[in-house]
């Protein structure tokens, strides 16, 4: 058990962070090169002003017609995305690990808050799962990989919750928790989770084309 713990909490953390940051760089550069070769028009029309204007509307809850038409989805998706990034960064149990390894620490949320927000994330994942199964248009666009990705995202939160509450088998669950977090980090650049890095560009380009060419809103 010590060997496994030392391995997943040591070298594998390095591996996952290197894949995460290296992967982001690689995907950004290779996409930029590909666009230059096959779709050079993207560079012609990309506009900072119209791009940012569109991004701003889309990152504000109910800031677009789509968000307004689907209020429940809007609330769930915004809460989910904020919690997804917020919880792991400001969790006391994570910060103490940073403190032990790098002697750095920052503000943290209470364990009760973390508990509640984690339940929100897990519930959101169930919502997304049901949505994919129930809504015909979403179901049509869903492939197996979408379920796998949803599982990858939900796993660290379910296992973390389990470990924190010291439910039966929490030692194994703790190992799986660390491992699942590392899998998620490594998966971000190379799956549809890459919308994390590409959304400013896809949204920015849409905004640019709609703003500068069609003189229309895209929100």
């Amino acid at each position, binding site marked *: 058990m*010590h060997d496994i713990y030392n391995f997943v909490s040591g070298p594998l953390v390095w591996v996952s962070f290197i894949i995460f940051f290296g992967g982001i760089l690689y995907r950004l550069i290779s996409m930029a090169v590909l666009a230059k070769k096959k779709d050079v028009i993207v560079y012609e029309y990309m506009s900072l002003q119209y791009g940012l204007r569109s991004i701003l509307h889309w990152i504000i809850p109910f800031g677009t017609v789509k968000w307004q038409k689907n209020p429940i989805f809007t609330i769930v998706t915004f809460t989910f995305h904020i919690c997804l990034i917020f919880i792991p960064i400001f969790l006391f149990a994570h*910060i*103490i690990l940073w403190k*032990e390894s790098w002697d750095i620490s920052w503000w943290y949320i209470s364990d009760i808050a973390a508990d509640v927000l984690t339940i929100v994330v897990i519930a959101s994942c169930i919502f997304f799962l049901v949505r994919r199964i129930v809504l015909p248009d979403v179901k049509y666009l869903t492939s197996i990989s979408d379920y796998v990705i949803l599982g990858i995202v939900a796993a660290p939160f379910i296992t973390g919750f389990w*470990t924190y*509450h*010291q439910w039966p088998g*929490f*030692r194994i669950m*703790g190992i799986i928790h660390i491992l699942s977090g590392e899998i998620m980090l490594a998966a971000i650049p190379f799956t549809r989770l890459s919308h994390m890095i590409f959304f400013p560009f896809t949204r920015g380009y849409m905004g640019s084309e709609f703003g500068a060419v069609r003189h229309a809103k895209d929100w």
Partner: protein
Amino acid sequence: MEKRTVMVYIVITLLVFSFAVISGFSQEDVSTIQDSAFKEKMRPPVRFLHDEHNETALIEECNTCHHVYEEGEKAEDESSEDMECSECHALDDGKNPMSLVKIYHVRCKRCHQEKKAGPVMCGECHVK
């Protein structure tokens, strides 16, 4: 009150008292890690059987854990078992407990990781 009744009461009181004293002594070794510098408890206290731990871990020198550092060097002949860790390991900014949490974790967990024995995960020490 009858003399006999009084005697019974006295005996019962003595029995209860001696039980409390004996159980108090017999649990001397059963304790939790405490440090008065920790004000807000984020996790349950760590149960620690001092003598049993040191027998299992084959620790003979007090200053393996209760060390004293002078000018960055560990003083081999000195130990600090009469002190709280926080007397030397001061809190960041005088109030942030993170640095103190860290030194406790480094003392216990890192040794366990190196020796590949003993608890290393949060819930193994901070048992709910």
